[in-house]
């Protein structure tokens, strides 16, 4: 079964190339607006999704956005990066079938929620938003999209390990399927040629410590965002909250319980503003 799961990664469609191209262009300071507009409009599905999300209160534009040109001009660079990543990622979440969640929308909602939470925490501990963190947080559970059918078939076995033997859900996946959803997500990120930091954020989002001495903060922040979303009930599905709490994730950033509670309040407000983003899947 493990071999079959790993082989399936090769047949996953490429991540929309236009997203990579947009990222390259957008981070050049001297880009020409019409070039960027043309590049985005080249992909119809991304264009449609951007237009659906652009007027969301979450992105906070004071101008009504009706065209991609408006979006490029009024959203601001950071928001534009986030919205393009979101539009590009969403296509992979439409056909989630069983396993972790009964509706595709639930896994998408969790993914967007973790992305939003990651920026709340980034503001708090890094004093800035972070597009690499956003991408890793948004796609942290991409492994679940493709592991879902195997988890569905093995659910009683995994749940027995969790309920009876003190396994986390992740450890249960690994024991029964030979691979867990974070590890598989890392392979998919590799298949998509994602930058190293994004891939690590996905692959280590439950076990940031396993990254060893490397000093990337992204896996820790994705981890923390994911745990907080589970606690608020915006969860990833049947696995519920059956994951390990790592105290180090707080001490590392000098965060206290009260900081987490405050972040949850901020997050809750933002999630309500992001309804249009949730609704694209």
């Amino acid at each position, binding site marked *: 079964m493990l071999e079959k799961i790993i082989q399936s990664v090769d047949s996953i469609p490429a991540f929309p190339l236009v997203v990579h191209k947009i990222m390259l262009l957008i981070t050049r300071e001297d880009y020409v607006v019409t070039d960027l507009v043309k590049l985005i409009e080249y992909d119809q599905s991304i264009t449609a999704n951007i237009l659906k999300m652009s007027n969301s209160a979450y992105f906070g534009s004071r101008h009504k956005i009706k065209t991609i040109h408006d979006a490029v001009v009024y959203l601001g660079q950071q928001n534009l990066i986030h919205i393009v990543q979101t539009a590009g990622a969403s296509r992979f979440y439409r056909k989630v079938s069983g396993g972790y969640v009964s509706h595709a929308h639930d896994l998408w909602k969790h993914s967007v929620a973790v992305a939003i939470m990651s920026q709340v925490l980034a503001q708090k501990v890094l004093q800035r938003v972070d597009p690499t963190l956003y991408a890793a947080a948004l796609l942290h559970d991409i492994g679940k999209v493709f592991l879902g059918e195997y988890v569905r078939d093995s659910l009683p076995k995994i749940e027995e390990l969790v309920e009876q033997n003190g396994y986390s859900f992740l450890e249960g996946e690994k024991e029964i399927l030979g691979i867990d959803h974070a590890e598989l997500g890392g392979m998919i990120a590799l298949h998509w040629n994602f930058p190293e930091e994004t891939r690590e954020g996905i692959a280590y989002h439950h076990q940031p410590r396993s990254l060893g001495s490397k000093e990337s903060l992204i896996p820790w922040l994705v981890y923390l965002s994911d*745990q907080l979303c589970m606690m*608020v*009930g915006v969860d990833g599905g049947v696995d*519920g*909250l*059956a994951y390990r709490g790592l*105290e180090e994730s707080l001490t590392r950033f000098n965060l206290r319980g009260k900081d*987490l*509670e405050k972040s*949850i309040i901020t997050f809750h407000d933002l999630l309500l503003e992001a309804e249009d983003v949730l609704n694209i899947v």
Partner: protein
Amino acid sequence: MADIIVSIADLKLGNRADDTLITFALGSCIGISIYDPQAKVGGLLHYMLPDSTLDAQKAQGQPAMFADTGIPLLFKSCYRLGAEKKRLIVKVAGGASILDDAQFFRIGQKNITAMRKIFWKNNVMIEAEDTGLNHNRTMRLELATGKVTIKSSIGIIKEI
């Protein structure tokens, strides 16, 4: 027959027999249902955090976000619809935690403790509960009968 959805940090009341109050996705949050079988009045609260001193301004606008502002509001609102304290049946669910819930992550546990303190101070008995552990819950209160059912994220449905 209508399902009335109670969002996170929200409460809803009802006295129409064919309605059901329902709240989804109780993780570490707590759902409290109260029901007066004589007046056929019920309420359901979904609070998120234990203590409103964390953000007094927020508590004013959204009292159902916190245990100490949400619980009194739930009871008072039901009294206004004709419920009486001595007849109220109180059932609670939620307060789940992640595994090895170290002292830092204990929002679920803090939510449970805050609720127990408030009930103890006000002489309120909990009739039934399904709290703790590490799964999400959906909670429903049928206003015709006062029946409360809990569905866990692993799909098990039970009446409490």
